[in-house]
């Protein structure tokens, strides 16, 4: 699983190593470290955001080790859905059983519709919806979009996706 943690370090030398060493010791794979030395917390500690991949069975052990060495664990969150995409749908969305479509995406287990706003100007007029879909990775995001494309095609909805060339650069 991918974990994102906010740690608070004392403002003395050697603290960052102290915070990162237990992650490696427990075979975690560190993906990013954001260390803002000049941005102190009200407690005078320095916040560090660490993202890493680790076996979920050792997570509690890791937290215990960190706290024992004097590193405060301020926040632990699972970074499950790391890829995100926004799309707009236009058409008779309300009659197209959107709930069913969202269920279909959510039930994949790898993607979720995390935001949706709907604008319906008048009965009989076409409505427009803005959706945000998150997924565990780019491939899964593509699969979720495929589900949506299929629905859009079947229900005669216009689906507006983001420009794509950006993703090549990543």
């Amino acid at each position, binding site marked *: 699983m991918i974990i994102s943690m906010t740690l608070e370090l004392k403002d003395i030398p050697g603290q960052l190593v102290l915070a990162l060493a237990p992650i490696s010791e427990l075979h975690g794979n560190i993906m990013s470290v954001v260390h803002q030395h000049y941005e102190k917390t009200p407690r005078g500690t320095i916040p560090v955001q660490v993202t890493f991949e680790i076996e979920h069975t050792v997570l509690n052990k890791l937290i215990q080790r960190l706290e024992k060495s004097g590193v405060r664990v301020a926040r632990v969150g699972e970074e499950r859905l790391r890829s995100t995409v926004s799309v707009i749908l236009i058409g008779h969305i309300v009659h197209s059983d959107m709930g069913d479509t969202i269920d279909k995406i959510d039930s994949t287990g790898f993607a979720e519709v995390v935001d949706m706003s709907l604008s319906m100007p008048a009965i009989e007029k*076409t*409505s427009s919806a803005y959706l945000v879909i998150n997924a565990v990775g780019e491939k899964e995001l593509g699969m979720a979009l495929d589900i949506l494309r299929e629905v859009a095609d079947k229900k005669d909805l*216009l689906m*507006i996706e983001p*420009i*794509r*060339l950006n993703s*090549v650069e990543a």
Partner: protein
Amino acid sequence: MKTIRISIIGFGAVGQGVARSLISKQEYLKKEGFDIRVVGISDSKGSEINTKGIDLEGALNRKKQKGTVATGGSNAIELIRNVEHDIVVEVTPTNIKNGEPGLGNIRAALMSGKHVVTSNKGPLALHFTELKEAAEDNGLHLRYEATVGGAVPIFNLVHEALAGNFIIGIEGILNGTCNYILTRMAEERMPYELVLKEAQELGIAETDPAYDVEGIDSAIKLVIIANSIFGQNATYGDVDITGITKITPEALELANKNNYVVKLVCEAREGKLTVAPRLVPKRHPLAVGGTLNVASILTDLAGRITISGKGAGSIETASSILSDILYIARNP
């Protein structure tokens, strides 16, 4: 001083723009060492031919007063074949069904040993490979900067300035009418039908807007890009096209709230050609407003290069044509 003799085939907005630019640039061209002499102009009613050089002011006035430039009965093909000159500037209107009359004119030019500079999308979208090979076989130039993006020099940029780069993909907004309509809809929260009417009154959209708003014009330009830049042998049927007619002001508002604009984007990447409305982040270089055109080119060495500018207009289009004429003059 090197004399370059050219003919202008088609004397509508673009042809007249070329004539005006040649008049206004006369001194500049002389300084560059070129005497660019128009020896023939042709429109649908006939031609004016003068091997010593046509008085362009006179031709423009005659067109304005009589509706034609013709002083004689020769048609375009006869002019191209029979009058001795170096470059045929083919600027007749685009016809996407069979490419005519542009296709016949370009073929006649290449077969009779004349270089071609054109703004005509039809022949290039339908017969790109054939025409390119005909030019190469005869040792002639076929240049078409004005076909895509009006004044925006996409082909020059890729073929000359970015030479050596591998082009990963191209995204662009290549239809000013659609860009105008989507920009106004978003700014004024007006429905599509109303903005279209406004655009028609301003002369930005045609009476029959289908060619623009259904994405046809964009698709034709994308085909030329695919063939010229990616070496594909694509035709119009290879493009997956979605137009802008179904877009609602509410959709644009939802996009706006989430820091996006909606644009009709042409995309060429991995052999796939798509024209479709897309969400573009507001701060992305592709997010240009009004009637502007833009092309964003992703390359392996240079990274992303984006250019934008006026995609239509008689003088703006003439800018691309003049640049093509000068390229040929310098690289005969």
